[in-house]
């Protein structure tokens, strides 16, 4: 019983919860995550559309951008932008650095997923649409993209969740997100409760999206015969 109450006191201390609850709830995860999701997927979609014009130098640039941002760890990019840019005269606040890096990473992955979706639409769809008099952009917008985007929903959802979870990386450059508030509170209070609160806050934020991702995956699944 002694050990149990000590455990509660260390990890679920009510006084500490009460004291640090407002600070941890103030963590700006939701705002940054929403900004990342919107700008990242939109930029990815735009890049995938640009790629359908098949301008060789343009496409080479897109592929290099996409590959680099898929291969580099986000934390490397965050540190590079956060410590590198001020030295050449560009000063960005830390939340902007986090948003910029994560949006670019998501854009790279999203472009690849949208592009795979566009490629999976049979050529006959393009030809049939063009033969009805639709132009190239009309075909893309009304015939190809609606089918392609449907295919991209499950992989895109999972990837978006994985990348928005990286908002926790903001703690390294001092963005006041949940984890940052939690570690600060933990060192002030000398108690592990704030860490537990931070972890629980993240789980509460992301469990619904993970479950949603699972549902979407089965709804839009492509079944092998």
């Amino acid at each position, binding site marked *: 019983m002694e050990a149990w109450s000590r455990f509660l006191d260390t990890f679920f201390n009510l006084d500490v919860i009460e004291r640090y609850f407002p600070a941890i709830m103030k963590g700006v995860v939701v705002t940054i995550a929403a900004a990342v999701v919107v700008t990242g997927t939109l930029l990815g979609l735009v890049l995938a559309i640009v790629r359908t014009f098949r301008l060789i130098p343009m496409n080479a640039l897109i592929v290099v951008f996409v590959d680099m941002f898929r291969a*580099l760890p986000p934390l490397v990019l965050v*540190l590079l932008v956060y410590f590198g840019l001020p030295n050449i005269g560009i000063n960005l606040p830390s939340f902007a650095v986090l948003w910029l890096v994560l949006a670019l990473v998501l854009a790279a992955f999203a472009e690849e997923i949208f592009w795979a979706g566009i490629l999976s639409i049979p050529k006959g769809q393009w030809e049939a649409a063009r033969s009805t008099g639709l132009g190239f952009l009309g075909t893309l917008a009304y015939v190809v993209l609606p089918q392609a985007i449907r295919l991209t929903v499950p992989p895109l959802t999972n990837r978006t969740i994985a990348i928005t979870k990286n908002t926790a990386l903001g703690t390294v450059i001092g963005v006041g997100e949940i984890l940052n508030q939690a570690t600060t509170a933990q060192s002030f209070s000398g108690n592990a409760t704030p860490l537990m609160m931070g972890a629980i806050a993240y789980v509460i*934020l992301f469990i619904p999206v993970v479950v949603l991702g699972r549902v979407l995956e089965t709804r839009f699944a492509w079944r092998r015969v």
Partner: protein
Amino acid sequence: MEAIIQQFFNLAIMERALPLILSGLKQTILICVLVIPLGLAGGLACAILSLSRLRIARWAAVAGIDFFRAIPPLVLLIFIYAGLPFAGLRPSPMTAVAIAFFLNTSSYYGEIYRAGIESVGQGQWDAARSTGLRGYQTLAYIVLPQAVRNVLPDLVSNTVEVVKLTSIASVVALPELLYSADMARSVTFNSSPIVLAAAIYLVMLWPIVRLISRLERRVAA
């Protein structure tokens, strides 16, 4: 332009930082060698549990997988590294990293294996069982080989994510590639060491990323 080269591509500084960064690379590889097999094994166990006939086992596996997919790996790592000492356990950075990454990557690999096993038709199970193979033999010799082939691009792609994930071990002061590069940066006030580390990550991972793109196209076709 001059300033950018000075700040990001300073060869003299890169050369001085190289020994430190190479020792960091060794640690990164060590983490990968430790975590990838652990994650693959843990993921397989999760997948088998999540397809079990026992409802409790199934639910436990799915709940565990979703929980560890919802919690950011950095939060998990800091919780283990900074939280466990309050419970009287003092994990070394490497132990904390191994535990956190094992939990995180197992859940991701588990989902991939599960999708793979589900993609193998029921007929394969029935046919294998009817030849006298036992359940575990059917799984090992008939279903898993086909399942792994079906989800190979996802398995490779997740392995790339694990390698990238090792960079967050720097936050608990494990002297891996990014940590060493950041040390060099803070001593020299110059970002070139991080550019060098980024180049090393690119050399390691770019070929695999290209390969994944091609594998995915082939499966989609």
